[in-house]
């Protein structure tokens, strides 16, 4: 592991950052919220033209054939911009699930459309009032029919395809569901984060196709480790944006004759956030490299990344608003995008409490370390 991005990865990040600055600046985010719009189509189309949507999809399926590291680089930039595109749902979760658990025939059927951005897909794991790890799942598959309630599901209104986590004969399995069929009902939810729309999906014996290459709780847990790791990069990007927004504001705002940022109470707060961010970023890099190398410790590394990044983003988002003072509470300031997004991401893939259990259980299972006297 060397935790150092390649020149190509650096350029990729710059490219995504420039796209976001051009097509989804804060003013655009405000307009999207006002219009209750679920995404910025223009940004998505540009990403598609540049091949970003197929970054991790094999070339044989119309993608670019890069790996999770590139998804992470893209996600970090999208997190920084609170970018209004379904990249995490479609490219990180759904496409990766199909790539991971689908047969080559299944991959060839669905991935080219996702790589080109012709279709948007999403991933439905959550069930009403259940945690990430709660079992049994109430959504179940019988033959090629799926029945149950999945909610909340991100970007469900944009998606025409959904990979659903369901129970099949007592085992976890993944199935692809076409959302535009009469046995599927999507009800929009009123979300705390107005820039990533969610819906509740009712599956009433809808037609589905099971992803056959991998099933069972072990392999599917590994997929969630990848999701958590990729999401950590989105959180790290958001935390960076919030920290530097606070830094820039406190440097230019004067109070009692000197910059607000010259007060130790402010400097120390920013330094604490920086420390948390640096550790979270290092943990996320460790997790993505562990994943890329197919390492044994991907579970603990992913949980570590998830917990650290969630904490760093929440703190950065809260203190960024705080350091802006009253202006931070206004619609015109940009603090609220991160303040809301940090909460959504803290919950969108299992809470810190759930991941702490996952982490502690995994560590407790490891052999007892030799104890020196």
């Amino acid at each position, binding site marked *: 592991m060397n935790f150092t991005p390649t020149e190509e990865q650096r350029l990729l990040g710059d490219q995504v950052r420039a796209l976001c600055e051009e097509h989804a600046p804060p003013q655009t985010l405000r307009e999207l919220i006002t219009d209750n719009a679920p995404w910025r189509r223009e940004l998505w189309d540009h990403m598609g033209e540049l091949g970003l949507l197929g970054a991790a999809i094999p070339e044989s399926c119309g993608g670019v054939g890069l790996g999770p590291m590139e998804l992470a680089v893209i996600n970090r930039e999208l997190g920084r911009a609170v970018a209004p595109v379904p990249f995490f749902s479609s490219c990180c979760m759904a496409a990766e699930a199909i790539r991971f658990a689908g047969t080559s025939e299944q991959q060839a059927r669905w991935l080219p459309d996702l790589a080109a951005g012709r279709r948007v897909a999403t991933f439905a794991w959550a069930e009403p009032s259940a945690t990430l790890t709660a079992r049994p799942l109430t959504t179940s598959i019988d033959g090629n029919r799926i029945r149950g309630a999945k909610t909340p599901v991100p970007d469900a209104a944009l998606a025409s395809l959904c990979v659903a986590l369901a129970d099949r004969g007592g085992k976890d399995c993944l199935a692809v569901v076409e959302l535009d069929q009469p046995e599927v009902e999507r009800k929009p939810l009123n979300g705390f984060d107005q820039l990533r729309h969610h819906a509740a999906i009712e599956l009433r014996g809808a037609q589905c196709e099971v992803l056959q290459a991998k099933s069972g709780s072990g392999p599917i847990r590994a997929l969630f480790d990848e999701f958590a790791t990729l999401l950590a990069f989105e959180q790290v990007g958001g935390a960076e944006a919030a920290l530097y927004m606070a830094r820039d504001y406190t*440097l230019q705002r004067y109070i009692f004759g*000197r910059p607000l*940022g010259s007060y130790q109470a402010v400097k120390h707060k*920013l330094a604490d956030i920086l420390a948390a961010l640096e550790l979270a970023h290092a943990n996320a890099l460790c997790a993505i490299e562990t994943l890329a190398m197919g390492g044994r410790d991907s579970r603990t590394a992913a949980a570590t990344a998830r917990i650290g990044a969630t904490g760093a983003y929440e703190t950065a988002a809260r203190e960024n608003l705080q350091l802006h003072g009253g202006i931070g509470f206004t619609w015109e300031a940009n603090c609220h995008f991160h303040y809301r997004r940090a909460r959504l991401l803290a919950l969108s893939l299992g809470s810190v409490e759930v991941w702490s259990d996952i982490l*502690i259980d995994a560590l407790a299972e490891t052999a007892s370390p030799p104890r020196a006297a």
Partner: protein
Amino acid sequence: MTGAEALPVGERAQDERYREQVRAWLAENAAEYSEPREYSEAELVAHSKAWICRKHQAGYSAIAEPTSAGGAGGTARQAAIFDQEEAHYHTPTFTGVGIGFDMTMAAVKGHGTREQYDRFGTLTHRGDITWCQLFSEPAAGSDLAALRTRAVKDGDNWIVNGQKVWSSWAHHADWGILIARTDPVVPKHNGLTFFLVDMKSPGIEVRPIRQITGKSDFNETFLTDVVIPDANRIGAEGEGWACCMTVLATERNRARSGPADADSPGSVLSLIHRAAATARDGGTALDSRAVRAKLARWYVREQGLANFGRRIDAQEQAGDGLPPTVALVKLVSATLLQETNAFLMDLDEYAGAFSSDEADREDVFFQYLWSSAMRIAGGADEVLLNQLAERALGMPGEMRADKGLPFNELPY
């Protein structure tokens, strides 16, 4: 990590041959240190010096330093290989060795003459002498440049008067690195000069300070009309502050190896196993949600430190130097040490505050006490937070009441 796999095959093979050679030498010469041993302070100092001497004779002391300065004229990779192999043994060392090999030598190499480096390098790397640091004073800690110890030129000598404090292991040191004020009419940072002082010089009195641990690792050192030859001045008159910065940068860099290895006794993983082995309410302490949340948070921080360390190692190896964020390592690890050792006491409830034959609580007590010193020594938490804010984020420096004022016109 980077390094090995990036090397050409020929060099890798050379490294492996060197490693084999080191292993064989250690097997023969470090056998008596294969298990931890108990020493008195004097024994530890004697063993440490003897061990350096033995390494020196075999070409394993200061491996990457030139032979003219008592080194072995080898490469940094060989030095790293030797360190890795030596780490498998419990070879004797103490604070005075690190102060000499790392901190003193960094200052002498960076600011002194070639003759000075050869002379003191040889004495140090041969194990003849160990060092102490005479920097802090009763009224100059985080604000080190406010120090008052005076050195006055007298022909080819300097006459030094003053009081130093927190000089670790000074009572066992042969030589000290000293910073003193040589010009009181210029602003405080500009009037300082750096010296090497023989601790056996007349006029030096070292008094142990009794610490909260009951031990006396630190001392206060009184200097009364101590004579230092001008030949032992390092750098120019007035260059003392720059020398100090070189030393302190080395000290903080050393603190980088802060977090425990995953399987070491103080690691969070070992805490998890301890909690799982502690009976509570018909189950174990690890069943408690509150306990799990704390352990998870600490583990994430500990791993964050380890991963951050790898990341900046890679940057350093790529020639990018150390980023200013390195200051976070001691900041985070000292508090982690404090919190985790408090937890080890908490685990045993009321009994956790008492020694016991079954549990290694004495070590926990010591670590908990020691962590309080870690949060102060080598840059207090508050100083490090300022550094992070100013150097890594570009925040303004502190407003200084003494800025630009000559030292002798300061109001305190």
